């Protein structure tokens, strides 16, 4: 079904090869490796090689000009005492822990409203999906910068009903919230995944429930939610991984500095500043690995927790 589904079945299905697999083994080796060649080269040169290299660099001091100098755990020790880094973690965690559930909740809600064979579904779906395609662009970030500015669209609308709004993106208390809203605004793609998931719940469950006199709300909690839980899980994993890496919106809205007073200084933004602003490549590499560990831990927690709430029908 999905990359994640496939991975988890792969780990479940360990065991000796079947006879058939053994027989087949090696038969197409030459052809297969020729077909795989671009991918294999990419894996080594673009992915695994750089990963190992950045692991090495994370133990060095390196500014691109002088050769890397081994400093042991210095970079990681520095991270411990780096208050701006701690702040960037706080900002990123807030973004992920508020933005992702909020976005998925809206996506699910709208998918539920859309699902019941509503007239005009393709039209609505397009409208809701469009922001997902545009949301990552610099252009939309520019738009956001305007509409949440002091004299922006939001405050113009508020002024019409007599409210004087703050400068949303210039106030440290609300700047991050504006960017979280931008994330929620792109709920269209998880919504489409939810719609596809809803389509696969067999109707007989609902019919049986109706015969038993279950209310719509009971049907939602007892049928829709459990049956949809693998999809919710899948969306959750993907969105969390993606959100930890979000960069463009905060960069453009804050003018590249993560301001005001570091309130939108995402971890990736700080990493960019360290690596490509100050060319502190060793430190940036250490940060990148730290990010990988964080994302890995979150994903692992997700997978472990999924045993308790994700329901597989097979």
């Amino acid at each position, binding site marked *: 079904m999905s990359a994640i589904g496939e991975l988890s079945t792969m780990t479940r299905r360990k065991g000796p090869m079947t006879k058939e697999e053994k027989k087949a083994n090696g038969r197409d080796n030459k052809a*297969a490796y020729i077909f795989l060649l671009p991918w294999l080269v990419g894996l080594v*040169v673009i992915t695994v090689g750089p990963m190992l290299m950045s692991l090495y660099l994370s133990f060095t001091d390196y500014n691109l000009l002088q050769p890397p100098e081994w400093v042991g755990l210095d970079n990681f020790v520095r991270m411990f005492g780096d208050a701006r880094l701690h702040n960037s973690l706080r900002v990123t965690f807030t973004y992920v822990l508020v933005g992702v559930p909020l976005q998925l909740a809206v996506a699910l809600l709208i998918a539920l409203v859309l699902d019941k064979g509503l007239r005009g579904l393709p039209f609505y779906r397009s409208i809701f*999906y469009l922001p997902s395609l545009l949301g990552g662009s610099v252009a939309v970030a*520019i738009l956001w910068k305007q509409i949440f500015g002091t*004299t922006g669209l939001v405050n113009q609308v508020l002024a019409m009903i007599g409210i004087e709004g703050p400068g949303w993106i210039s106030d440290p208390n609300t700047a991050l919230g504006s960017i979280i809203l931008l994330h929620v605004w792109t709920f269209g793609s998880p919504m489409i995944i939810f719609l596809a998931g809803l389509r696969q719940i067999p109707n007989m469950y609902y019919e049986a429930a109706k015969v038993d006199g279950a209310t719509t709300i009971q049907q939602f909690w007892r049928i829709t939610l459990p049956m949809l839980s693998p999809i919710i899980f899948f969306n959750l994993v993907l969105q969390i991984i*993606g959100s930890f890496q979000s960069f463009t919106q905060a960069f453009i809205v804050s*003018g590249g500095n993560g301001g005001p007073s570091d309130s939108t200084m995402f971890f990736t933004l700080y990493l*960019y500043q360290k690596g490509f602003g100050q060319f502190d490549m060793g430190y940036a590499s250490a940060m990148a690995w730290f*990010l990988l560990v964080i994302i890995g831990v979150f994903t692992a927690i997700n997978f472990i927790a999924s045993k308790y709430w994700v329901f597989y029908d097979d």
Partner: protein
Amino acid sequence: MTKLQTLPAAGDSADKTAKSPRRRESPGNLAFSRSARIKGLIKHAILILVGGVMIYPLLWMVVSSLRPNDLIFREPGLWLDSLEMSNYTDGWSALTHPFGHYMINSAIVVLGSIVGNLISCSMAAYAFARLQFSGKKLFFGIMLLTIMLPFHVVIVPQYILFSQIGWVNTFWPLIVPKLLATDAFFVFLMVQFIRGIPKDLDEAARIDGAGHPRIFLRVILPLMVPALATTTIFTFIWTWNDFFGALIYLTDPDMFTVPVALRAFVDSQSATSWGSLFAMSIVSLFPVFLVFLFGQRFLIKGIATTGIK
């Protein structure tokens, strides 16, 4: 796993309404159908409201780009008194090069990325979906993992690598990785698709004496056009919007793609040029919008089957 592939995705919904009994109310019960109609109305109201709020900022940006600058800070409505094209002409020539220059740069990167993804990903996908080879499971697992790998972990050494071979301020760092199938996610999308193609077709070709290159080119590729279309469309949109890669590798204004050009614009603008900034933002979104308009079917199928962005 291939199940989803054959099931109708959210895409083909129009026919669904008629078929599924869950959505039919019992015809005899008048009171019931009236409440159902009210329910329907409420739903439409919710959807129109939410959709309206979502789309309003975009519409407002389009309208504002056609207004004199000072109105952008005073006029939240969508009414246009006159058409002001000066924002477009000003914005077009506001940077070192006319905006078209950056669009051509973007187009080059996009084209290279599309060609790269189509060739390299389809080849890898054929191997994973159809061929038996040692290490297949391991490699397939690695491929799936790389889909989820954060870009930032590799960006520093990649930058060092590309800067050492003198590729900074060229398009190569943005295109070459695609030629090497690093967008693993399209490999996965295509693997899913190829698994849905009956194996009998391969067998028939093999009996006729075709080798793998020929089966791939003559049998599989023509049948996987929908997957190739999805890949093309997603590659287009993501590459067109890609900011981080361009920000790092392209520092010379000659080489700017659209996102970094816009960023340069937003940094250089005084408080009075929001109109032209909006105008160029809209110009930059226009190709994405066109692709969305004509490629929606593939986009929605692609998301529904692989669950991407």
